[in-house]
C-alpha cells in the first residue's frame, strides 16, 4: 500500500547529546518493533537535531499527541509500540516527572524547562529532520530569501534588519544591520560572507545545536546577507570538534544546491551564491574574526589589527561580512515576519530572543531560548529547576572566558547586552555556568586564566606574559602561598592587559578575575590571609584527616586506600592518621564503612 500520509510520527532526538546516550540503538529497536507489527506504513520515524534537554536524553516525541518520552532505552520500545502506538495508552513510566510535584507530564510544552522558552532561532530544532530539506521548506523555509530576491532591493533587506534591532549573537552585540551596511557600502568587485561557527566558549553549544538541528536556517540567513551586501561567495567556519554538525551541514548544502537554492541565478534572478565549509583546526583564538580569516587563508590564526575592519578589508583583502550562527539564524524570521513583529520580543536595546546554554550545578541542563530582558532568576530557577542536590546558589558565570561571575544579589537583573556590561560580565555567546557553594571562586578565576593563557596566540606581550603572571599568582593563592599585595597586583596586571592587547582575547581575559574580585573578594582574602578555602575545593588548603577512635572498628580498609601510607593500625584496633604525611586526598573517607574519618 502506498501511503502518502502516516497516522503517527515518532521523533527521536539525534543530536550529539542523545547520540551519546544511545539514541541510535533506540531507533533500531523501534524500527524492528514496528516492522514486526506491520506498522511501517502507518508510522514514520524521524531523527531530529537537539531538542535542548540533552540531560534527559535519549528523547522521543510521539505525534499527533505530542507525547514526550525521556531517557528511553532500546528495551522500552516494545512497550511503546505495543501500548502506545497500537493501543493508544501512554507509557507513564517514560514520561518526564516534575521533580517538585512528582507528577508525570505527557506534553513537553507543559514542562517547566520548556514553558518559559520562546523559540525563534531554535524553532525547528528537534521538530524537523535536519537532513531533509523538504521539512525545512514545509515550515516556510527559504521563503524569506525568495521574497527578498524577488520583491526587495538589497538596501531594503539591510533596512529591515537594521529596523529589527538585531545585534550580533557571537559576543560583542554589534548591530547586525549596521555591519551589513558597512560591507554593502564598501567598494569592491568581490565580496564575501562568513559564518563564525567556531563556538570556542567552553560551556556553550547553541551554535552546534542549530547546525545539527536546522542547518538550512543558517544557509538561508547567509544567502540573505550575501544578497544584502553584494557577495557571491561564502564560508562557514566550523570547529573540527563538531563532526556531526559538519556532516549535517554538508548534507544540507548538497540538498540546497540540488534544489537550486544555492548556485547560479537563484529564483530566476541574476543573483548567484556559492557556499563552502571550512573546518577549524583547534585554536580558540580563531573565533576572533580577523584570526578566523587568516585561518581560512591557510595561515596561522593570529588576529590582525582593526581597522581596517573586515567590512572594508576582510578575507583576501576583500570586503567581508562575518556573523555568528545564531545571528544568521534570526534573519529569515525578520525578513519573513517583518522587523516590527520581531521587535515585539525582548527589550528596547536588545530585541528578540537569546539562546542560553544552561550548565553546571543546576537541575535542568540544556539549551533554553528566552526573550531578552528575562531575569537570571527566571532562567536558573523556573527553567533550570534550581540548584541540584539542594545546594546553595553561589554564582553564575556568563560570557565564557571574556565574561564574569555574578553573585546572588544580581539574580534579579534583567538580562540584555548592556545590563550585563554594567555589572562586569557580558553576553558572550550565552553560556551560563551555574556554581554552588562547593565551587571556589578563586579556582574559577584560575581556570579561566589557565584557558586564556594557553590559548593566547602570543602576538602581544601583555597578553602572553601578563596572563601568565596572573595565572602564576592565582595558582599560588589556591595552594595557600598567596601574599599580601597579590590582589592589588592582579588588579594592576588586569588593567594593563585590558588596555594594551590587540584582540578581544587579551582585552577580556582579565574579566573573570576582575568580576570575582569584585563580588567575591573575601574568598581571595581567606585564601591569602587565612590559608583556607571557604568552598572546601582547593585541596592543598584542606587540613589533614583524622580518625575518630571511638567509631573506628579497625577494619584496615583505609590503610589500603591511602596512596601515601599515612594510616597505621592493627586489624580490629584503632587506626591513626599521620598528620604530616597525609596529603588530604580524601581517598580513605569514602572507603570507611563507619564514617569515622573526618577533616
Amino acid at each position, binding site marked *: 500500500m502506498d501511503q502518502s500520509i502516516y497516522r503517527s510520527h515518532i521523533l527521536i532526538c539525534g543530536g*550529539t*547529546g542523545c*547520540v*551519546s*546516550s544511545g539514541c541510535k540503538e533506540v531507533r533500531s529497536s523501534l524500527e524492528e518493533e514496528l516492522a514486526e507489527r506491520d506498522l511501517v506504513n502507518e508510522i514514520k520515524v524521524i531523527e531530529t537535531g537537539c531538542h535542548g*534537554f*540533552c*540531560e534527559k*536524553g535519549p528523547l522521543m516525541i510521539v505525534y499527533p499527541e505530542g507525547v514526550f518520552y525521556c531517557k528511553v532505552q532500546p528495551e522500552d520500545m516494545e512497550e511503546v509500540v505495543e501500548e502506545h502506538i497500537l493501543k493508544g495508552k501512554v507509557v507513564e513510566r517514560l514520561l518526564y516527572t516534575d521533580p517538585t510535584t512528582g507528577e508525570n507530564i505527557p506534553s513537553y510544552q507543559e514542562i517547566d524547562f520548556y514553558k518559559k522558552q520562546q523559540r525563534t532561532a531554535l524553532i525547528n530544532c528537534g521538530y524537523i529532520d535536519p537532513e531533509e530539506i523538504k521539512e525545512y521548506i514545509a515550515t516556510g523555509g527559504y521563503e524569506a530569501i525568495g521574497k527578498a530576491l524577488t520583491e526587495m532591493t538589497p538596501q531594503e533587506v539591510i533596512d529591515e534588519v537594521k529596523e529589527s534591532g538585531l545585534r550580533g549573537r557571537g559576543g560583542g552585540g554589534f548591530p547586525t544591520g549596521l555591519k551589513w551596511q558597512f560591507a554593502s557600502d564598501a567598494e569592491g568587485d568581490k565580496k564575501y560572507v562568513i559564518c563564525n561557527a567556531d*563556538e*570556542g*566558549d*567552553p*560551556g*556553550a*553549544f547553541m551554535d*552546534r545545536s542549530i547546525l545539527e538541528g536546522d542547518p538550512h536556517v543558517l544557509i538561508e540567513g547567509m544567502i540573505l546577507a550575501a544578497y544584502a551586501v553584494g557577495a557571491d561567495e561564502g564560508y562557514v567556519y566550523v570547529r*573540527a*570538534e*563538531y*563532526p556531526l*554538525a559538519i556532516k549535517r551541514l554538508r548534507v544540507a548544502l548538497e540538498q540546497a544546491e540540488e534544489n537550486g537554492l544555492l548556485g547560479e541565478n537563484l529564483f530566476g534572478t541574476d543573483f548567484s551564491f556559492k557556499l563552502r565549509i*571550512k*573546518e*577549524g*583546526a*583547534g*585554536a*580558540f583564538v580563531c573565533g576572533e574574526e580577523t584570526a578566523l580569516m587568516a*585561518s*581560512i*587563508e*591557510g*595561515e*596561522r*590564526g*593570529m588576529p590582525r589589527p582593526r581597522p581596517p575592519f573586515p567590512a572594508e578589508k576582510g578575507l583576501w583583502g576583500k570586503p567581508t561580512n562575518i556573523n555568528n550562527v545564531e545571528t544568521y539564524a534570526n534573519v529569515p524570521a525578520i525578513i519573513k515576519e517583518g522587523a516590527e513583529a520581531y521587535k515585539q520580543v525582548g527589550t528596547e536595546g536588545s530585541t528578540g530572543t537569546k539562546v542560553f*546554554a*544552561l*550548565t*553546571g*550545578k543546576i537541575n535542568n*541542563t*540544556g*539549551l533554553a531560548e528566552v526573550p531578552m530582558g528575562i531575569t537570571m532568576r527566571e532562567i536558573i530557577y523556573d527553567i533550570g529547576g534550581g540548584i541540584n542536590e539542594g545546594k546553595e546558589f553561589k554564582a553564575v*558565570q556568563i560570557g*565564557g572566558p571574556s565574561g564574569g561571575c555574578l553573585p546572588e544579589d544580581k539574580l534579579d537583573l534583567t538580562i540584555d547586552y548592556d545590563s550585563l556590561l554594567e555589572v562586569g560580565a557580558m553576553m558572550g555567546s550565552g*553560556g551560563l*555556568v551555574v*556554581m554552588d557553594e562547593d*565551587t571556589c571562586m578563586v579556582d*574559577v578565576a584560575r*581556570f*579561566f586564566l589557565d*584557558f586564556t593563557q594557553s*590559548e593566547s*596566540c602570543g602576538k602581544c606581550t601583555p597578553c602572553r606574559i601578563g596572563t601568565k603572571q596572573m595565572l602564576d599568582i592565582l595558582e599560588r593563592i589556591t595552594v595557600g602561598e598567596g601574599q599580601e599585595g597579590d590582589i592589588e597586583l592582579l588588579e594592576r596586571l588586569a588593567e594593563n592587559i585590558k588596555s594594551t592587547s590587540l584582540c578581544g582575547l587579551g582585552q577580556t581575559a582579565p574579566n573573570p578575575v576582575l568580576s570575582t574580585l569584585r563580588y567575591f573578594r573575601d574568598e581571595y582574602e581567606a585564601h591569602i590571609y587565612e590559608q583556607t578555602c571557604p568552598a572546601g575545593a582547593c585541596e592543598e588548603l584542606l587540613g589533614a584527616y583524622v580518625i575518630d577512635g571511638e567509631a573506628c572498628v579497625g577494619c584496615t580498609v583505609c590503610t589500603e586506600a591511602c596512596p601515601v601510607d599515612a594510616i597505621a593500625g592493627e586489624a580490629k584496633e584503632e587506626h591513626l592518621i599521620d598528620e604530616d604525611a597525609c596529603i588530604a586526598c580524601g581517598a580513605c573517607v569514602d572507603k570507611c564503612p563507619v564514617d569515622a574519618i573526618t577533616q
Partner: protein
Amino acid sequence: MACSCGNAEENQEKYFAPLKKVLENYDKKAKDLIPVLQETQEEYGYLPQEVLEEIAKSLRVPFSQVYGVVTFYSQFHLEPRGENIIRICMGTACHVRGADKVLDTMKEELGIDDGETTEDLKFTLESVACIGACGLAPVIMVNDNTHGLLTPETTVEVLDQYRG
C-alpha cells in the same frame, strides 16, 4: 619514517602515494594548506617531517610556514598517535562537574599523562576545551563517539569498551 632498505626510490613512492592522492584534489595553492594538512593527517595518523617537506614543495610555501601552521593549531601532530584518541573535556561546564576526576582516572588507568600516547600505541590522551555536549558534563570523546555524565567508575567502563 620511510624505510631505507631495498629499492629506496620505490619505497619513497609508496610512502608518498597517499599524500599524492590528497594533493590531487587541490589546486596546490597556499590557501589549501590547512585542508591539505587535515586530510594528510587522516591518511598518516600524524604529520611526519618528510611529508611536511613534500607539502611545502607542492604548495610552494616555505617549510617554515608549514611548520608554523602545524605547531599553531592543536589539531596537528608531529608524533605518531594512538589507535584510539581520548579527548577529555576540560571546559567550564565539565570543570565544575568534576572533569578533573575523570582526567585523573584516565591518567591512572592508562599510565600516561595528558598529551601522551601509550607505548603500545593503543591510546592517546588529550584534554580539550568543550566538545559541545555540556548538558551531559562531564564528557569525553573517544574517536568520534561522545560519552557523557561520567563518574570515575563509568570512565573505566567506557575505557574497557575500547580496550578490546
